[in-house]
């Protein structure tokens, strides 16, 4: 009898301590493109942050100042529109009172919401590629992925040398992201001795690329650069170009979206595309993350996802080290000092002082892969410092 009582008492104690395990809630905001053309990237952010939060919650919560915090992820869809992102950031900052925001995807959205996050000392870790995002006057803004500024030149140098490209054409979305990337890509191809003979800007909702492809193919380009075009747009460009009989190379010096391109264009049309990727499927930590993603989501994992899982974990680590969920200046100081973090995508540190005047740019390994039978096969391994080597 006494034994039974002891068991009951111990169980109650256990339940009590479990309840104590996460007695507070820490809200983390996600602004991402959940619907529309950039949905694949938005889901990469959303899934990455959700999985990082789930991991913390399953371990009993985030321990800060003697309390255990359960992470609650609040997600708003910006539909790849700056206006929607502003609505979302106002809700997150003023209504939900969050101090940490991950996202958004697009540069126009990030540029639009940055004044709100900076003014309210809210940490934002975005995907946006624009150079305007990071500078010494934006101490609360970070970028969770490498951009064309970091990876375009090494990747393009390797591809041009390997495939002997002379003339190239490219499509760019007609917005802040597209303008930024067009400058980076043109400069990088110029440095590699390749002429960007055709530059086509289009509105993001465009689905018929045949007129522009006709003009581009009339310039006898060896390759078409897909750069930062949204996954579905890139897929349509590949599909329609192959329908028109284009036999040249496709190169994607932009955000990972191989699965989405293959889904839209089909395996045959996608064969041989050279893509930038952040995923090395041979890396054990990446494999573990891919498995975790597969267990939790039905959608295919976008290549950006590990970066946002890592950035969320780095922010949680910085909160823990700073021992505060309110003083974001203290959290920024700790976050900036994280070096060689064991991320799903490999060893992660901060860089960017020389380029942006502030070390708030993530530094991760990246790769050039060839699409074979709908899958990425790594052809070169790269870092910002060493460039790309055959792999």
């Amino acid at each position, binding site marked *: 009898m006494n034994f039974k009582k002891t068991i009951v008492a111990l169980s109650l104690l256990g339940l009590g301590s479990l309840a104590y395990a996460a007695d507070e809630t820490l809200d983390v905001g996600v602004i991402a493109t959940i619907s*529309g053309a950039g949905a694949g990237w938005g889901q990469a952010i959303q899934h990455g942050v959700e999985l990082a939060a789930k991991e913390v919650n399953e371990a009993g919560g985030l321990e800060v100042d003697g309390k255990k915090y359960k992470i609650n992820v609040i997600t708003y869809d910006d539909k790849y529109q700056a206006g929607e992102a502003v609505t979302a950031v106002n809700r997150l900052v003023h209504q939900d009172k969050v101090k940490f925001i991950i996202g958004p995807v697009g540069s126009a959205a990030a540029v639009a919401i940055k004044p709100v996050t900076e003014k309210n000392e809210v940490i934002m870790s975005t995907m946006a590629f624009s150079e305007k995002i990071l500078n010494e006057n934006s101490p609360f803004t970070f970028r969770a992925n490498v951009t064309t500024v970091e990876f375009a030149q090494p990747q393009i140098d390797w591809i041009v040398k390997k495939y002997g490209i002379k003339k190239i054409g490219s499509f760019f979305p007609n917005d802040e992201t597209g303008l930024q990337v067009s400058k980076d890509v043109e400069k990088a191809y110029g440095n590699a001795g390749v002429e960007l003979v055709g530059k086509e800007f289009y509105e993001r909702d465009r689905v018929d690329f045949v007129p522009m492809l006709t003009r581009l193919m009339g310039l006898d380009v060896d390759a078409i650069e897909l750069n930062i075009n949204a996954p579905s747009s890139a897929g349509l460009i590949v599909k329609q170009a192959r*329908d028109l009989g284009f036999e040249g190379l496709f190169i994607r010096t932009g955000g990972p979206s191989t699965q989405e391109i293959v889904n839209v264009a089909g395996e045959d049309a996608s064969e041989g595309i050279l893509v930038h990727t952040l995923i090395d499927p041979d890396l054990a930590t990446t494999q573990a993350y891919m498995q975790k993603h597969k267990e939790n989501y039905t959608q295919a994992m976008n290549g950006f996802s590990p970066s946002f899982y890592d950035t969320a974990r780095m922010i949680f680590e910085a909160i823990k080290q700073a021992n505060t969920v309110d003083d974001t200046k203290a959290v920024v100081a700790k976050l900036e000092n994280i070096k060689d973090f064991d991320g799903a995508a490999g060893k992660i540190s901060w860089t960017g002082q020389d380029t942006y005047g502030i070390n708030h740019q993530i530094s991760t390994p990246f790769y050039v892969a060839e699409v074979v039978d709908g899958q990425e096969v790594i052809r070169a391994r790269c870092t910002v410092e060493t460039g790309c080597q055959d792999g």
Partner: protein
Amino acid sequence: MFSETIVIQAIVNGIVIGSLYLLMAIGFTVVFGLMRIVNFSHAEFYMLGAFICFVGIAYFRLPFILVVLATFLIALAFGSLVELSILKRMRGDELSGMIATIGIGMILQSVALIIFGPDPLAVPSIAKGIIRIGGAVLPKARIYAGVFSIGVLVTMYFFFHHTRHGRALRAVVQDREAAQIQGINVSVYYPIGFGLGVGLASLAGALMAPIFSVYPTVGFGPMVKSFIVVIVGGLGSIPGAAIAAMILGISESLSGTFLKSSYAEMFLFLFVIGLLVLRPQGLLGEKS
């Protein structure tokens, strides 16, 4: 590539796109002429057709022609049912009818979002390879879609001009009261007309699906273009819509080929505004 071959290529592409806009626009005109409502769910019926095509080809591997026919019949039946169950009660009350179509559109879009998700889905191409006309290179898939839609338009022409029901429907569209005086049972043609109108939108969606991708908001762009076609052609005028659709399709393709994309859109809307300033009733519309 010579510029004249590029021009041929652009014109043929423009005719294909224009004929698809025309399918949408005729459906829109029939519904407006019949019920005096702007059917805001037209985009979602286009989307419905695209998804039926996706399911039929990607899942059931059915032949394209069969899928297109089935799409039209399903949309015709569903549209008639929507008219009988919802819009029938709003006949004569145009404002309520229009608001109801907004609701119908939102419901259809949400259902598609729940079932298929937001990501674009691909329908395998109906034909691979190219057709060469002179130096011009034209994708077979587009040519087939264009031929199908022109075939449907010709069939519609015969239906409207050479069949009893078609003539009756046209009479109701042109002047409801005069049609009634001639002994036409107008109320029978409401569900048929709405079903036919949205059936044409679905047909356009099914024909477009293998060329582009399929997602819940896919109908918005074509709906805007069909609005333009209807307004430029003259509200209620089917021949006007036909001329406007071809002008829009060809000018869009030519300007997209020879001008930068943003300029092309700007010139297109400048043209539309200019035409409406000079001829507010549209190309073949009547002054009210």
